[in-house]
C-alpha cells in the first residue's frame, strides 16, 4: 500500500467511524465529482443536490468496505455514485412522468423509449454537448449508451429490449464510449 492509498484508507476508516472532520474532507475531495456526475444524468439541480446528499450518506454507510487494494478511492466514490444514480433513474423510469399523467406525451414509449434529448439534456451547456456528441454516434451505440448510462438499464435488459445478443450490446457500449471520448477530445482540442 503506497502512502496515498494508506491516507485514503485511513480517511475512509475515519468516515466509517462517523468522524465529521473526515466526512468534510471526503466531501472536499469528491463533492464536485459526485455533483458533476449526478448533474449529467439528472434533470434538475434540486434533484442533483438531493442525489449528492444521498450519495454521501451511502459513502458513509459503505466506508468500511473500501479496499485500497481493489480500487482507488476515486473509483470507489464513482462506483457508489453511479450505483446510486442508477437506482434513482430506475425509480424514475418506474414512475410515470407528470407529462405522461397529463397526457401530453403521445409517443407511447414511456421511459424506456425516451431519448436523452428529451429526458435528460434539458438544458445546460454540458448536457447540450453530450447530446450533440451522442447524436453523432451510430444509432445502436447511441441507444445503448442512453439506456445504460443515462437511463439506468442493465445491459441484459437492453439486450432484451432491443432483441439483440448481449455481446452485441456490450460491444456497442464499448465502442460508443470510446467514440464519445474521441469526440470529447476533438472538441477540447478545437476549444483550446
Amino acid at each position: 500500500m503506497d502512502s496515498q492509498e494508506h491516507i485514503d484508507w485511513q480517511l475512509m476508516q475515519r468516515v466509517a467511524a462517523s468522524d465529521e472532520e473526515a466526512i468534510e474532507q471526503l466531501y472536499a475531495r469528491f463533492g464536485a465529482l459526485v455533483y458533476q456526475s449526478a448533474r449529467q444524468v439528472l434533470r434538475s439541480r434540486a434533484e442533483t443536490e438531493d442525489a449528492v446528499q444521498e450519495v454521501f450518506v451511502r459513502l458513509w454507510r459503505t466506508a468500511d468496505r473500501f479496499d485500497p487494494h481493489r480500487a482507488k478511492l476515486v473509483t470507489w466514490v464513482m462506483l457508489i455514485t453511479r450505483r446510486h444514480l442508477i437506482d434513482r433513474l430506475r425509480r424514475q423510469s418506474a414512475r410515470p412522468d407528470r407529462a405522461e399523467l397529463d397526457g401530453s406525451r403521445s409517443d407511447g414509449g414511456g421511459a424506456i423509449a425516451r431519448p436523452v434529448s428529451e429526458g435528460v439534456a434539458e438544458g445546460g451547456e454540458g448536457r447540450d454537448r453530450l447530446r450533440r456528441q451522442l447524436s453523432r454516434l451510430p444509432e445502436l451505440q447511441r441507444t445503448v449508451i442512453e439506456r445504460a448510462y443515462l437511463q439506468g438499464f442493465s445491459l441484459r435488459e437492453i439486450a432484451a429490449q432491443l432483441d439483440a445478443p448481449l455481446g452485441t450490446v456490450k460491444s456497442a457500449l464499448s465502442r460508443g464510449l470510446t467514440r464519445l471520448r474521441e469526440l470529447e477530445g476533438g472538441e477540447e482540442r478545437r476549444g483550446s
Partner: protein
Amino acid sequence: MRRESACGNACGNACGNACGNMQGNMQGKVGRKQMSEHEVLSLDELFELASFEVLGLLDPVDLVRFERGFAASAPSVQAEIIGLQERMARDPIFRDTTQDAILGSGSVSGVGEPSASLRLRTLARVIEAIETESASAKPIATIGPVSRAVAVQVSEGQSTRGSSAITAESMRDLISDLSARNRESRAPTQLVWRAASFILLAALIVSMFFNIRLTKVSETLADATMGQALETDAIRLAAEYSGFDFASSRHVDLVPVGGARVGHVSVFLDEKNGRVAVHGIGFNPNEIVEIVLLDEAGKILASSQFTVAASSFGGLWEAGSAAIAAGRIQIRGSASVGSADVVLYTQA
C-alpha cells in the same frame, strides 16, 4: 498500446468481442486468456467489464465474473485495471463540468462546482443519518441502575459510533464505571446473600421431596398394619366360628344408636343350640363392648363382654336357647374404655 504491455502481444480476434474500451487507442485483439474459478475470461473482456463496472453497468452475474477474473489475474494486470478504472472515474466525459450549479447560490466556487450551501446540507444530511442510526441502536431499556457514563450519553443523545461523539476521556469514564459496577456486583456480602438464598431454596426443595416420600411410606405402613391386624382377627374368628350352624341361624343386623358410630354389627342367633355368633367392625381398639339379651321389660336375660382387638371384635357366645328366643339384642359400651353403660347398637 498500453494493454499490449499487459498482455504480452497483440494478436488476432481470439475473444470475439470488440475491444473498444475507454483507452481508444487500443486496436488489436488480445488472445491470451486467464483462468478464473469456473471459466476462461479474456483480458479483453476483463478490461471491458472493468470499464463497465466503474459506470455501474454490471449486473450481478457479470459483477461476479469480473471479481473472479480480477482476483485470478496477475498483480500487474490488477494494477492496470485499477489504473484504468481510476482514469475512467476522473474522465470528464462522465461529468457535467460546464455547469450552472453556482447560479442562485451567489457562490463563485468555480465552473462545475456545487454550491457552498450544498456542502453544509450534505454534511447535515450525513450527520442526521448517523444520529438516526445511533438512536435506533440504543437499548429500549436497561436492567439495573444506569451507570453515570451511560446515563450522560443517553440524556445528551450522544452517538455511540462517532469519534467526535465519544471522546477518549468519555470512553475511559465508561470503562471505569463498568469496572466499578462489576466490582460492586461481586461484593462479598452480596455473594453471601446469594449463596444463602440458593442454599435455602435447595433445602426447601429437598425437604419437600422427603416430606412427600415420608407421607407415602407412612400410608404404606398404615395399610400394611391394618391389613395384618384384620387378617389376624379374621383367622381367630374363623377358628371360633367353626362348628356354628350359620345355615339354620337367624341373622340380625344391629343399627347404631344416636349416629355416633359408623361401624356395623352382625349377629347370628342359633336358638336350637342356644349359641350366638357376633361380629362387629368399626370400634375403637381395646374398647370393651357388651352384648346383652333383654326381655320385653328391659330386664337383662344374658350378657357377654368382648374386647376389641384392632377395630373389630367377634366370637361365639353361649347365651342359651330360652334367652335367644325371648330377648332382643343390644350392644353396649361407653365413651371410656372399661365401662359398658351406653347403648351403642340395637336391633332395628
